[in-house]
Each structure stands twice: as structure tokens, then as C-alpha cells.
């Protein structure tokens, strides 16, 4: 009775990555294995894989990590990249996302990496351009490449890295990941929360009701809400901190002093052995204290390096190349 959307069976070009929910555990394993192969390959060999291929980076929002990481990933594989940002293109003149995509396709782009402020924009671009689209963050929806690099970071740490090969639906059995902060506005939180339980992890979402509505527990099985940060930390092997997205608050009021008191990750409440992660950008002194961000349990910089390998793998997959 609720299936009226069915006649519009959505077809995305193979190799697209719009949502982690589109990936099977086997595909996740394949992407991570490919990332490792590419990382270990000689730069000369690597630069042949996408030689002559054209990749467009289409960015409607500012970005440091994701953009640079995708761009360097494409270049290391030998691809030609072009960057289009909303500030210096016909987008400013009112060109639609569909027409921008069709224009890039007509110019020979074989894959589009999209960062956009509207949830679902990547899906729209994939439907209209018919090109493989890599979602580099769409509104509050998803940031799948971030979740994959976070997963790779976790696998490198938990159990002394013993679980990082042979990724399967039980790889993260017994692991609890606490994700704390502005869950409501976070595409990183959504992608991680929907990806990690499929590899066996338990996800504990933590934050005040204004930033973490009860609906969040509906993101999937293996997800629970734990409002008490210290209790969440006691159960977790990994903690992922999120920034408060002031640009998306839209009238919500958060008492920052109270927030810091309850939810800031600082050394006094960080149990030994818990891996500290943060997708960036960090607001030091707000959600995370300096000593933790720079401390021995922090894997934050490492996340960035994993990003390069994972994004190389996603590009190879998107362009149907072999490595």
C-alpha cells in the first residue's frame, strides 16, 4: 500500500556511493582491501591506474579534509581533476544541480565527487547525471567515505589491529563505539551509525535531547541512546566526538557552558584504552580538550591518512578500474 514510489525504480550508475546503506558487508571488505593494496603499491604503478580519467569535484560547501583528500587521491591514481565550487561558477548565477551535472558530463567528467548543503543532493545528481557520484557529504544526511575511513581507523586500533584483514559482519563483535555531540546535524554520525553495526559493532549515541532526538535510535539495529557521557565512555572501546554545527542550529538553543560540562571529552573522564576519534573540524575547548586531541589515545590525525587510502579505493571502484 505504501509502494507508490516503485515505478520510479531508482537507478544509480555502478560505482556510485551515496549512502553506506547501499553497501553490503562484502563490498565494504572489498573497498578496504583495495585501499590497502593501493596504499602498498609503488607511486609509479599507482599513478597508472586512472591515467587519463577525468574526475570532477563539485563543492557547494567549504571543506578542507574531504576535498583535499579526494583531490590528492585522484591525482595519486593519475586522474585529471577539476574543482568546481559554488562561489566561482555558474552556480552563483542560479544554475541547477541537474544542469551543473549535465554540463560536467558533457565536458567529459566520468565521475563526480559532490559536497552539498542539501540532504539527498548526491542522490539527485546521480539520478540526473547518470554518472557515478561519490557523496562527499550531503546536508545532514550522509558522509559515507568518512564512515569508511573511520571504520578503517578503528580496525587498525582495536585488538591491536588483529581484525583489520578479512572484514566481515562480525569484525567488530564486542566493540562499542560512543558517538557524542551534535548527532542531529551530523552526516558523519548518520553514516557511522548505519555502517558500524553491520560489522558487529554496537553504537552508543550520546548528547542532549536538543541535539539527539529519540528518533536517532531508529537508524538501525545495534544503536542505543546513552545520555550520560561517562556511562557511555565506560562501555566504549572507541569514542567519536562531533562538533556543534552552529551553521545548522536554526533557532535551537544550546547552553554551551552546560554542554562543555556534560559532554566535553577531557582527560579526567577518558578511560584508558579508549581510542579517541573526531572527523574534524575540531573546536578545541568545546567538544574536546587539547590534551585529549593531542594525547596518546588520539587517532584523529591517523583518520585523515586513512581517508586518502579509502578515497583512492572509492575512485577506482567508481571508475570501474582494476588495481
Amino acid at each position, binding site marked *: 500500500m505504501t509502494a*507508490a514510489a516503485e515505478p520510479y525504480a531508482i537507478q544509480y550508475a555502478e560505482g556510485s556511493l551515496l549512502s553506506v546503506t547501499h553497501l553490503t558487508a562484502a563490498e565494504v571488505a572489498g573497498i578496504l582491501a583495495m585501499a590497502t593494496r593501493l596504499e602498498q603499491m609503488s607511486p609509479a604503478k599507482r599513478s597508472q591506474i586512472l591515467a587519463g580519467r577525468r574526475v570532477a569535484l563539485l563543492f557547494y560547501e567549504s571543506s578542507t579534509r574531504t576535498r583535499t583528500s579526494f583531490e590528492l587521491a585522484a591525482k595519486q591514481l593519475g586522474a585529471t581533476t577539476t574543482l568546481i565550487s559554488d562561489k566561482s561558477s555558474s552556480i552563483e548565477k542560479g544554475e541547477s544541480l541537474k544542469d551543473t551535472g549535465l554540463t560536467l558530463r558533457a565536458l567529459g567528467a566520468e565521475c563526480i565527487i559532490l559536497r*552539498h548543503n542539501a540532504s*539527498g543532493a548526491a*542522490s*539527485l545528481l546521480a539520478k540526473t547525471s547518470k554518472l557515478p557520484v561519490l557523496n562527499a557529504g550531503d546536508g545532514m544526511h550522509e558522509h559515507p567515505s568518512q564512515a569508511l575511513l573511520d571504520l578503517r581507523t578503528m580496525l587498525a586500533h582495536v585488538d591491536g589491529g588483529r581484525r583489520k584483514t578479512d572484514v566481515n559482519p562480525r569484525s567488530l563483535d564486542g566493540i562499542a563505539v560512543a558517538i557524542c555531540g551534535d548527532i542531529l546535524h551530523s552526516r558523519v554520525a*548518520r553514516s557511522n551509525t548505519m555502517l558500524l553495526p553491520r560489522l558487529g559493532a554496537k553504537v552508543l549515541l550520546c548528547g542532549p535531547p536538543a541535539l539527539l532526538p529519540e528518533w536517532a535510535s*531508529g537508524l538501525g539495529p545495534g544503536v542505543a541512546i546513552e545520555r550520560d557521557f561517562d556511562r557511555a565512555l565506560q562501555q566504549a572501546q572507541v569514542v567519536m566526538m562531533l562538533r556543534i554545527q552552529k551553521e545548522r542550529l*536554526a533557532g535551537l538553543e544550546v547552553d554551551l557552558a552546560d554542554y562543555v560540562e556534560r559532554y566535553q571529552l577531557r582527560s579526567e573522564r577518558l578511560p584508558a584504552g579508549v581510542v579517541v576519534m573526531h572527523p574534524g573540524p575540531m573546536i578545541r575547548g568545546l567538544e574536546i580538550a587539547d590534551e585529549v586531541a593531542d594525547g596518546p589515545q588520539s587517532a584523529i590525525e591517523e583518520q585523515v591518512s586513512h581517508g586518502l587510502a579509502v578515497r583512492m579505493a572509492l575512485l577506482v571502484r567508481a571508475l570501474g578500474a582494476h588495481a
Partner: protein
Amino acid sequence: MSSILIRGGRVVDPASGVDALRDVLLKGGRVAGVEKPGAVRDDAAEEVIDAAGLVVAPGLVDVHVHLREPGQGYKETIRTGTAAAAAGGFTSVVMMPNTMPINDSVETMAWMLSPDRGASVRLFAMPAATVGSMGRELTDFPALRSAGAVGFTDDGKPVLEDAVMRAALVAAARVGVPVSQHAEDTRLTGGCSMNAGALAFRLGLRGMTAEAEAGIVERDIRLLREIELAEKLRPHLHVQHVSTAKAMDLIRSAKAEGLHVTCEVTPHHFMLTEEAVGEYDTHAKMNPPLRAETDRLAMIAGLMDGTVDCIATDHAPHAAHEKEVEFERAANGITGLETAFGLAMRVLHQGQGMPLARVLSLMSANPARLILPPGHGSLAVGSMADVVVFDAGAPWSFELGRSRSKSKNSPFDGAAMLGRVKATVCAGKVAFRG
């Protein structure tokens, strides 16, 4: 004046309680006779429609359509929109005022109702309740009423301020028509593009809560109660496109209390849920949004138990470029004139066992009685010669590409329908032959 004999059909006319094989003679723009089969000779009419095996019923009435003229003829014109209406079995439609300019004056309304628009069904208009639909100053209710207004509404948005809504209900009661309210507390729905809930959360979309709809319905009902006590008037509140169980419950209680509240439900709100949004399908974006399954079931319950007075389409055509955009930016609404009857027959008649006469009441007799002048929504002798002839048992599927509407924004492409319209006669003339 032409005359038509509709011969051999099963006449189902809920307004006069007829459900029998009858020949219907239309003459001079009126129903001239409803007679036992064979009683009227073929040569009594210039044209004969053979309705053997078919149902003959009063033409359908839709009290909520957007035909986009004046000002947005690229989406729909009154000509194309009424062609779609005729194909869907409708013979009367009530046009909402959110045109460009807003229909808030006698001049604009006269332009919309003019024969020059080329309508193939009867046109009625509900002009704006407030000037420019800005929610502040009432329009000239007496003048608009004299010029044919059948109600007042700021549809597309609510009349938000208590004092303004109160004044609108009083002014409308004085001229004997309803205020038709789009119940949405827009102070709570800024930036929202679908129903609030786990699905909106997963999709990263801001959601409209049931409270935003129910809050306005509750407030309006309170105003009715206050006005009845204070003014010795009996204002009529018509709640448009109810979508939540909460609002339905409020309407049910207000009716039990004896207040003059009526409401409409759209086919999409009794047919679909928020799940139809899928992966940002903008053909499932409308306002009010598609809701949860519990709400959909509450719409069906309201339709079955009589809380719902009528089915209305909220036919809202939009051009492709207004829908093929980011979900949050996409225009609200879907077309509905060609799918309403087929969906009502399938979901309510076939699916829920609602008697055919009840389906027809919800789509003709009731909306006509609530909103239109006398003489509509019935096949009693002397009524308007507005008739729909359909094959009640015929399954079919909607082909969006063949829609007569200028816009193709419907989630029902390929959807299964029941009850095929074979002919629509409006004012004694054939407006559609299927």
C-alpha cells in the same frame, strides 16, 4: 440546448437514495428524467450514451484544486486542469487562491471564473481570507461572496493569528460560507520538508510534527466554540487535507460536540505514507506531508466512520524543473484529478469494503452540499446535468505520460486503479469520453 439520454446504467445517486437500473435524460442543462429502463425513447434525446454494465452517478466534486491561473500558466491552465478534471470524472472544482496575483479581489476572481478560460467543468473559487494571503487584513467577504465566492481560505498557509481567524470565521458566517483552513502552525515548521520522525531523521531532513497540524485545528475549534457562545452565529470551519491522527481525533470530538466542523482528506494521505519519500522522491513531497502508517490508518478510519466529509485532491501541478531539484527546495504537491477516483475505489471500496454509494457521497453529494450552491452533486430531477459514467469493476493503471494536466508530478505513475471513467457530462455536454 442539447439533450443526452444515458441509457441502461445502474444509477447510484446517494443524495436521492437511488441505486437501481435507470435511464437518465438530460435536457436544458438539467436532469430532466430518471426513469425505469426503456421508459424514455431514444429519439427523446439528440445523443444517446449506452451505459449498459456501467454506473451512472452525479459528477464528482473537488473542493480543493490549484489550477495555477492567473500567473503560473507554465504549470497548468484552467483549460488543461479542467480537462484533467473531466477525465477524472469531476464536473465541479473549487479553485484555491494562491495564484499570482493572489485571488483576493472581485476582479481576479471574475477573471478566473470567466468563460474565456475555456474550462470543461464547472468552476468555483475560494478567494483569499486575508489581503494577499498575508494573514493580517480580511478581504471584502460580502463583495466576494456576492461575486460567487464559495468560501474563504489562505490555502498554502494558515490564517495564523487568533484574532484574524476569529474575524474571518465571523465574517464568513455572516455571508453563509465556510472558512477553509490549511492547518499548519508555520511557527513550528520552518525549513521542514517531510513528516517528523525516524525516517526524516535518517534522511537528514527537518520534519513537521503532528502537533503543528493539530495545534491549529484545536485553536480553530476553540474559536468556533467561543463565537457560537458570544455572537449567536454558527460559523463553519472546513479543515483542509487532514493528515494526522491527532487532528482527526480533534475533528471527531468537535463534531460530537455539535460544532460546525467539516473536513477533507486527500487520496495520497489515505493511500501513501512517508515511506514513499524513499530516496528523496520529490513526487512524495507535499504539504501537509505524507505521514506515518498510524496516521494513514486514522484517515481511513475517519473516512469509514463519517468523520471525514469529503475527499479532495489538492491537485497541485508543478513543472519538472520545480520538482527535479534538491528535496528541501522542491515545490510541494502532486497532481490528483485523474487518480482520485481510481484510488478511492481501489483503497476504500475494494480494500476497505466501503459501499459504492459512500465513495460517491464523499466525492460528490457531500462536498456539493458543504461548499457548492444547491443543485449540484445529485441526479434528482431538476439538478444540474452533471454526470459521471464509469465501469466500477474495471481495473486499470495510471499512465502519467498520458495525463491531461500540463504537469506530470504524480507519485502514481503505473499505480493500480479501480473504476474506469467512461464519460463525464458537465452542464449537459460531454466533457470527456474514455
